[in-house]
């Protein structure tokens, strides 16, 4: 994030300042509306001038996001947003760069750019709107659709085992990995804040409901009134959940995670900064299907050299060592001879 992000002038921004004159064109009831509202409400607290904020997206319903944020923005091509954001972040460390993407955009066609951005730890934030379906193209299954999913393109059910976006990100050396729920504004805001504060690339999966083509996919956490399905991850705190937090998580000696009583001696204490990614990975394997509960919040948040910082340092070091490049001297370098 840029230190002089305010561009000098005092900021008195509100959510309204982030709305654009463009009519928002998502279906009625689309989870994207909630995400947009949460983002517009959160932005002012960042204390960064609108002109120093950029949203880059690919293609998809989710990827319409930049049109509705009154900042700089690019609605690019399918799957390539992380690559484009990399070029922008690397040349403009003064900007706050965000990528808005969908499960198809980020994990299907864009999978390679995503995992490489994460391992490089380039300084931008990736918000993956996961509705477990292709919305814009009208309802084909996606890489996060559950096995056997019946969709337009799979009348007898899909055949491919889905990605677990968090496991994939952690396997790709991500330094920040989190999960939020579209309708949980408070939780999402916390996660966005942590992501913004993290220097380097941050990966946030947001459960997003698509009422048209994959309605109710996330009811287990969206409608989880008593919070019996959400496992709230809080750094440094024991992982307790369920009704009145009577359940807890414990790690088996083989590294896998099992349920245990809330008062169990070995209750797992969440440590998002752990040098080993093993814990975060194990937690990413805890799902509604496997454990009847779904961890929400920041899984992993560690420091690692940031690609764009390292590049800036190399440029500085080179200039330090050899001085500001001198074009004339450069052209005349190497073996030369005169013809009189």
């Amino acid at each position, binding site marked *: 994030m840029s230190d002089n992000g305010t*561009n000098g*002038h005092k900021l008195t921004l509100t959510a309204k300042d982030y709305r*654009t004159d*463009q009519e928002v064109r998502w279906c009625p009831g689309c989870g994207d509306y909630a995400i947009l509202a949460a983002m517009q409400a959160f932005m002012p607290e960042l204390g960064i*001038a*609108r*002109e*120093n*904020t*950029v949203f*880059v997206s690919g293609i998809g319903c989710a990827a319409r996001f*930049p*049109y509705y*944020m*009154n*900042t*700089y*923005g*690019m*609605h*690019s*091509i399918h799957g*390539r947003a992380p*690559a*484009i*954001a*990399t*070029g*922008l*972040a*690397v*040349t*403009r460390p*003064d*900007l706050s760069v965000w990528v808005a993407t969908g499960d198809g955009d980020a994990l299907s066609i864009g999978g*390679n*750019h995503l995992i*490489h951005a994460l391992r490089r730890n380039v300084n931008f934030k990736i918000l993956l709107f996961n509705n477990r379906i292709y919305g814009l193209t009208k309802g084909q299954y996606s890489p996060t659709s559950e096995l056997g999913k019946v969709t337009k393109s799979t009348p007898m059910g899909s055949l491919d085992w889905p990605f677990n976006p968090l496991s994939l990100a952690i396997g790709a050396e991500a330094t920040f990995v989190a999960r939020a729920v579209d309708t949980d504004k408070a939780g999402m805001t916390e996660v966005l804040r942590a992501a913004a504060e993290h220097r380097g690339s941050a990966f946030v999966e947001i459960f997003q409901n698509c009422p048209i083509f994959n309605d109710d996919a996330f009811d287990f956490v969206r409608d989880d009134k008593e919070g019996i399905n959400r496992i709230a991850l809080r750094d440094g705190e024991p992982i307790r959940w369920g009704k009145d937090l009577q359940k807890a998580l414990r790690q088996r000696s083989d590294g896998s995670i099992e349920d245990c009583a809330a008062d169990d001696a070995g209750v797992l204490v969440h440590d998002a900064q752990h040098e080993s990614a093993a814990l975060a990975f194990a937690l990413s394997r805890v799902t509604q299907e496997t454990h009847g509960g779904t961890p929400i919040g920041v899984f992993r948040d560690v420091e690692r050299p940031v690609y764009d910082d390292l*590049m800036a340092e*190399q*440029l500085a*070091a*080179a*200039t330090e*060592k*050899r*001085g500001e*490049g001198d*074009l*004339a001297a*450069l*052209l*005349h370098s*190497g*073996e*030369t*001879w*005169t*013809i*009189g």
Partner: protein
Amino acid sequence: MAKPVEQLSQVIVRFAGDSGDGMQLTGSQFTSETALLGNDISTLPDFPAEIRAPAGSLPGVSGFQLHFADFDILTPGDEPNVLVAMNPAALKTNINDLPKGGTLIVDEDAFKERNLQKAGYAVNPLEDGSLSEYQVHAVPLTSLTVGALKGIEGVTSREAERSKNMFALGLMSWLYGRPIEPTIEFLQAKFGAKRPEIAEANVKALQAGYAFGETTETFAVTYEVKPAKLKPGLYRNITGNQALSLGLIAASKQSGLPLFLGAYPITPASAILEELAGYKNFGVRTFQAEDEIAAAGAAVGAAFGGALGVTTSAGPGIVLKAETIGLAIMLELPLLICDIQRAGPSTGMPTKPEQGDLLLVLYGRNSESPVPVVAARSPSDCFDAAIEACRIALKYRTPVYLLSDAYLANGSEPWLLPDVESLPDISTAFATEPNVDGEFMPYLRDDQTLARPWAIPGTPGLEHRIGGLEKADVTGNISYDPDNHDLMTRLRTQKVAGIASDIPELEVDDPEGNAKVLVLGWGGTYGPIAAACRRVRKGGGNVAQAHLRHLNPFPRNTGEVLRRYDRVLIPEMNLGQLLKLVRAEFLVDAVGYNRVSGLPLRAAEVADAITALVEQ
């Protein structure tokens, strides 16, 4: 006692040996020595496609050809006058290029059973008389070298042997009266610090080779090639990829924009990434991406942020960038795409040149997506071509393709160094203010250039969103309006077409002024075509030559020029791509001369094609 000296106007030497024999080094050192004598030079290395094919094998042969003369020359030459072959494989793969009567120098020691086998020789060609039509000098280079290096501390016999290339260089230097001092300095500088004994060994070998020439009987005369009357000034020898890299740095300076290169390694473009990675103190950022799509995407992102965005590749990688270039066309952002063409299709012959990508860069995107195209004509010209391509990209806010090829990329020639003051100012202004009563319209065009304003993040009040969907004229909002789409499609096309008024007219070289035949070329074939025209003229034929730097748009006088001649010949290293464009646009019944062999065109063959037309 000194031997008689024979005057020559030009010589073409080819060094050929095993990948391990250091032929590239030998060749480039002979080039430096020759440059210092003021000859004009043109060189062409010929790498094996494999990294290290087995020693002594045919695919393992590496070659370096040098053409030097007392006049300004245009090509590395079709065929060598002198071939230095360090082993049987090198002889086998190169002998057919040596004209009858040519001079052949071989390392006798290398013509042993195993090497002969590997090269597929049943019997030793040095003994079966098969070389009788050449002037053969069979010299025991290896043993002579080893002998000369006896007693140098710390040099293994293996290392002693590997100095034989310097012995050969010494011999050749003597034969053509080249000074060996620069090479001695080079060797000291290269090995002196770390392994002085190796430096000593190489120098000794070099000197021994030189002395051998003087003393041995085998060489009766030495040759001299007088300096060429070149434009006076400071020169340096440079390859196309080096010149292109320097051109990009110059463009960065002259535009005042930081250079960002997004690239994924690929032959023969990798050298540009590697070269630019060394200029970080010029503010150059090089990004080795995960693939060509990301490389291009990152360059677009950098351009959005206000940098000079560049991406480099070759055929297979250029193809992958197409969708991203299409986006840049819609975004109307400056972007440079360098295509170092190689033989295809598909993986093809990665190390060999071709002009196969002209139609690709013009049409290889969905729907109407016009782009300017600039092509370099010689290694050193890559410098100017790069600046010109950047100028157009920045001024017109458009992706621009710059075409080079494997021959220009690796070939070298003397470069008359430009004076930095004389370089064009290609700076462009960012938008800083709203442009329509208090609002910012990202697609409000300059009525001169039709370019749209370039407003970069960080500029207060100009926040805007752009994307790949069709956009409304002026506002840039998404629009599905039929007439708007027709209008925007034509505007994008007109913007590029309009560049014709901003580039020089096509120049014709027609000494006699009464030629009936015009030879039209583009890109890397300039040398062979110009050389061919010379031959034809020497032979009394009249021919005019014109060479295109801009392939889109064409210079405004192109049609007029073409119609001036009865016949138009278009030689290309493809099956007739410029030919198609010219026929379609000007309805001129031009004909092509096409060779798709992965080699530069041969001046002699082009000359024959011209003569055939001239004499019709």
